[in-house]
């Protein structure tokens, strides 16, 4: 009897999707995981349908959806339209978040330090190596900057956060674009690597003179010293919900083929410059249209009822007019084997 119940328990953990045929399964990006988990919990309470999301990383999510082992994949890096076409996939933005530079310099308090994209790129290129470098001092005439070596901290694992950050640096600095480039993992010219947002946060906190970049939520939770950034309009902005929202509102999703749009350095006087969306990936042709419909119903629910939960966790919800564009693309692009649209609403 005891063995039997143990076995049942083991089976329930091992293959949850089989145990409940109604459940949906997804895998991918770690950055939106706290939000997707919260949405899943609330959705289950409301509808009884479980969403099993595994935060194995964007790269893993892309592999799993290509292999069709999950119902949906999630990635912080949008796939290029030609890559999507080749794999028969479609993507759309699910939530927006901000990446924040954090520093550990004695005497500097949160929001004190002002940086531009070009200076940030030079720091990560190793060209600006001391905190009292004239380039930093010129932006911060009122601060007493120490003669301390800068230790730039980056992600050691591949990460959507790094993609957003390097994309921004490439837009701010031609040298960065040519010599390093943009990806979830790049050949960092200098600095220390930490694993995960928490690794970068910990390493920055432990190393005097360090500068790192983390998701906004991590900077808040760890009470880290964030910096102000100059945006495309030339204004210095503080990272918060309002500046992320401004960045999201100024993005032109309707004219981005395959929703391939990176939100970094957007226009607008209030926009936070290092902002990015997290994406959902699904197959355009669905072998099991009923399952696909259930998945889309979950995302539709999240768009309509999940905004408050997103804001509680310091994410920025997708603006309503963008949701309309996304749902129109579901109806247009996703069908079953006979070409019948999956999403009709």
């Amino acid at each position, binding site marked *: 009897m005891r063995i039997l119940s143990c076995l049942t328990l083991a089976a329930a953990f091992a293959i949850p999707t089989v145990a409940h045929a109604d459940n949906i399964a997804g895998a991918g990006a770690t950055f939106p995981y706290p939000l997707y988990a919260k949405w899943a919990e609330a959705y289950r309470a409301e509808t009884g349908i479980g969403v099993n999301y595994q935060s194995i990383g964007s*790269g893993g999510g892309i592999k799993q959806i290509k292999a069709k082992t999950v119902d949906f994949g999630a990635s912080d890096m949008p796939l290029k339209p030609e890559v999507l076409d080749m794999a028969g996939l479609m993507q759309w933005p699910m939530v927006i978040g901000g990446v924040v530079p954090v520093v550990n310099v004695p005497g500097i308090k949160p929001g004190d330090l002002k940086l531009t994209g070009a200076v940030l790129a030079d720091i990560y290129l190793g060209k600006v190596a001391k905190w009292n470098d004239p380039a930093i001092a010129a932006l911060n005439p009122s601060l007493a900057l120490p003669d301390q070596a800068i230790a730039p901290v980056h992600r050691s694992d591949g990460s959507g956060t790094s993609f957003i950050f390097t994309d921004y640096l490439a837009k701010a600095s031609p040298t960065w674009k040519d010599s390093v480039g943009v990806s979830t*993992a*790049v050949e*960092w010219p200098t600095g220390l*690597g*930490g694993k995960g947002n928490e690794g970068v946060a910990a390493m920055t906190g432990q190393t005097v003179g360090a500068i790192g970049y983390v998701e906004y939520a991590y900077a808040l939770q760890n009470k880290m010293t964030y910096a102000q950034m100059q945006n495309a309009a030339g204004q210095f902005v503080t990272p918060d919900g309002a500046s992320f929202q401004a960045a999201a509102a100024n993005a032109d999703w309707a004219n981005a083929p395959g929703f391939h749009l990176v939100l970094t350095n957007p226009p607008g006087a209030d926009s936070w410059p290092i902002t990015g969306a997290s994406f959902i990936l699904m197959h355009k042709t669905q072998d099991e249209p009923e399952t696909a419909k259930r998945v889309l119903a979950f995302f539709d629910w999240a768009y309509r009822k999940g905004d408050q939960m997103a804001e509680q966790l310091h994410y920025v919800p997708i603006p309503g007019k963008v949701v309309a564009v996304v749902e129109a693309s579901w109806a247009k692009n996703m069908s079953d084997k006979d070409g019948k649209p999956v999403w009709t609403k």
Partner: protein
Amino acid sequence: MPVTPEQPARDALFLGASRLATWALLSLLLAILLTLVIGAWPALVEYGPSFLATDAWNPVEDVYGGLGALLGTIVTAVIAMIVGVPVAFGVAIFLTELCPWPLRRPIGTAIELLAAVPSIIYGIWGLFVLAPVMQSTVQPALAATLGQVPGLGRLFSGPPLGIGMLTAGLILAIMILPIVTTILRDVFQTVPPIYRESAYGLGATTWEVVWHVVLPYSRTGAAGAVLLGLGRALGETMAVTFVIGNAHHIKASLFAPGTTIASTLANEFTEAVGDLYTGALIELGLVLFGLTVLVLGAARWLLARTGLEGKAR
């Protein structure tokens, strides 16, 4: 015991079972090797031997070289051995030869407990406790002393970051210490008491007993203990990932961040996109496999050449 009719059948069964276990182990090893080669194939074909000639690690351009990780693995393991092994010998000799009897059990148990601490705990301790001390005190002191020596000074130059190859090596030294100490103590205890007593009876000092009786008798076992420690240092993953700084470029200074093969795999495998990236990571695994075989083989050969193996049993 009387021989029963079933005896030969049982013997045959036991022989078969143990033979099967041995072959299963060996074929598992071969299967691992085969899997590594198949997984690394795209990278093996693309880069050939030049994979080990460069420290480039560029996922954007899909150019990978394993030299940085290989060198980091060897350098951190060497630091760990230089710092850890003498201390382990000291502790083991103290425990078997010098320690008052009532204290031997408690100290021995404490060291065994240290060996059971999960490696991630060492990593967290290294990042939150050791690294700040290294940055504020140890590294500036090293730079002011050893850093001024011509030639050698380059190893101790550059800005003190706290996190880097030296800190990783020290964490590894602390991690291999309990396991090497415990095995050394057990090995030293196998020296028959009559040898020790004879030596003491002849008027030998404790030092002479250790140097001329205990160590020669237990040389093979001691070498085994050191090799096990080296094996752990080469393959250690999480603790190193925390404190090494995870940078692929080779720098002359031990203060600079580096990376090891195991920590590179732990960091990058989940998010590696594309056959070449994954292949290059698996090829790193293959290199570590080869390195371990090489180290173990070299040690066996050294022991055999000096005629110590077997004789000292």
